[in-house]
């Protein structure tokens, strides 16, 4: 597993490196001392796992994650930060407190899902932060993406958080086998479609599980019929 160490203190990274030397399946691909360094490394190395410190100068670990198009697996590290600890609790994220206890590290690594085959070019999960709460959202759980200016509102479960990406930006990165641009305002998850019917003006109306109803534009209605060979 390719991992990146992200912490502003060199000695903290050194310490984590030492602890990880016990775990032969983890390959440390690089180190970063702040969010912008980290972003460049993530783009270049496409790691499977991040060890991410929350409190860093400039952007925090949360801010870094929320800016990524594709969030890798993450194990958060922090010395002590009430706000972060609270976020971990409410969001059930995995974290380690520094100094890291070796058995806790082993447990956190054991919990990680096995790295998928390399076909996940398209993003499969995003990190979303909305006020106090944060989530890793699997794309399969998102029923609907709704454009709100430069932001996009995600509809999954009972949550409706906004993320700072435009709908067009997301469309380019979403797997077209699973997501369909329904109109200027909406992208729908094809797996969440319950039924489709034709509206009065000939455009299609998609009913999604969870009670959403999205009207497709005329052009996209045609495209939808073509792709689905209806």
């Amino acid at each position, binding site marked *: 597993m390719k991992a990146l160490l992200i912490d*502003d*203190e*060199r*000695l*903290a990274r*050194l*310490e984590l490196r*030492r602890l990880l030397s016990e775990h032969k399946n983890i390959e440390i691909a690089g180190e970063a*001392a*702040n969010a*912008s360094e980290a972003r460049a490394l993530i783009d270049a190395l496409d790691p499977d796992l991040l060890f991410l410190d929350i*409190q860093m*100068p*400039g952007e925090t670990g949360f801010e870094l994650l929320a800016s990524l198009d594709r969030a890798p697996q993450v194990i958060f590290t922090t*010395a*002590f*930060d*009430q706000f972060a600890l609270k976020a971990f609790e409410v969001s059930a994220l995995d974290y380690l*407190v*520094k*100094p*890291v206890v070796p058995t806790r590290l082993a447990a956190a690594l054991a919990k990680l899902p096995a790295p998928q085959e390399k076909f996940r070019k398209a993003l499969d999960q995003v990190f979303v932060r909305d006020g106090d709460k944060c989530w890793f959202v699997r794309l399969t759980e998102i029923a609907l993406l709704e454009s709100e200016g430069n932001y996009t509102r995600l509809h999954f479960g009972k949550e409706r958080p906004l993320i700072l990406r435009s709908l067009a930006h997301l469309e380019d990165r979403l797997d077209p086998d699973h997501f369909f641009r329904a109109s200027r305002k909406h992208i729908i998850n094809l797996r969440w479609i319950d039924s489709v019917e034709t509206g009065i003006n000939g455009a299609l109306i998609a009913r999604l599980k969870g009670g959403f109803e999205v009207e497709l534009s005329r052009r996209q209605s045609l495209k939808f019929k073509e792709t689905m060979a209806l």
Partner: protein
Amino acid sequence: MNRRKLYLWLHGGGWTVAVLMLFGLRLVFSSQLRVTFLEIANWTLYALSGIFLTNQLRIRTRHWLDLSIASAWYRYLGSTLLVGLVLGIQVTLVGPGWRILAGARFPFEFFFGTIINTTFVVFMWTALYIAIVNISRLAEAQTRALQLELAAKEARLKNLQAQVNPHFLFNGLNTVRALIAEDPAKATEAVTWLASILRYGLRSDDAPTVTIAEELEMVTQYLALEKLRFEKRLTTSIDVDDAVLTARIPPLIRQTITENAIKHGIANLPNGGAVNIEIRRASQRIEMSVRNTGALSSHNPESGIGLKNTRERLHLLYGSDAVLQLTESNNEVIAQIILPESRQ
């Protein structure tokens, strides 16, 4: 009820009761039972004059309260007698004195009687006033002492949280653990610093002040540890006038400010910065400043609490003689404390 209101009630009520009693005495001991309009008017005027004169007495003699007991009492006795005399003359002239014009003899008994009674009333008034003032001053002093004690305790507790706490402690321990492999000699030193910082934070003695030298030793060790953590990102300088080393300051005040400089200044800068400490003496005052690279954040609840607590302690110890201000200029945040020089 506020103090002004209380005073007005006691003042007005006291005089009303006193005049009613004097008038009652006159009814009991005088053979003449008929009450004339003139007499009522005279006693009313007497009460109003009494209210006016004793109030004047209070305003003009307020500073006597701070004199020694002996010299204050001479003055109070004198002024009491004077007010008694004035009121006695007034009530005699306005009342039975008129009858002299009609050929009656001067009412000596009434005259001296009233002077003695009035002097007694004014004397009681003064005694009561002094007693109330002193009792409330005592209560105030006690509250102040309690507040001071509480604030010191709170600061100790806060410091405990800041030192024994969280961020500093665990980051420090993590640094030391990394150093054990990398540089064992430095790790040994770091453990010693950490221990003395914890010991200083957990001090059990209740001394309200420490010498600047003691506090500086602690600050130096604290900065040394933070330098291990931040490495090249933190540079420090300490510039202290040797003459102030034995002067005394409240413990942990310097420390709180230095910590803020690291926590809210350096820790937020990717390329780090400098923390410069300066302590000077200027005309019986000690000027301490901590400058750090960075900008004042408009909203920072945490530093707000630390600063508020420090301000409170300075105020309780030195009143308006101590100043703590936070300013920003040229990409530098400057925390400055000015307090009176003291060696106790």
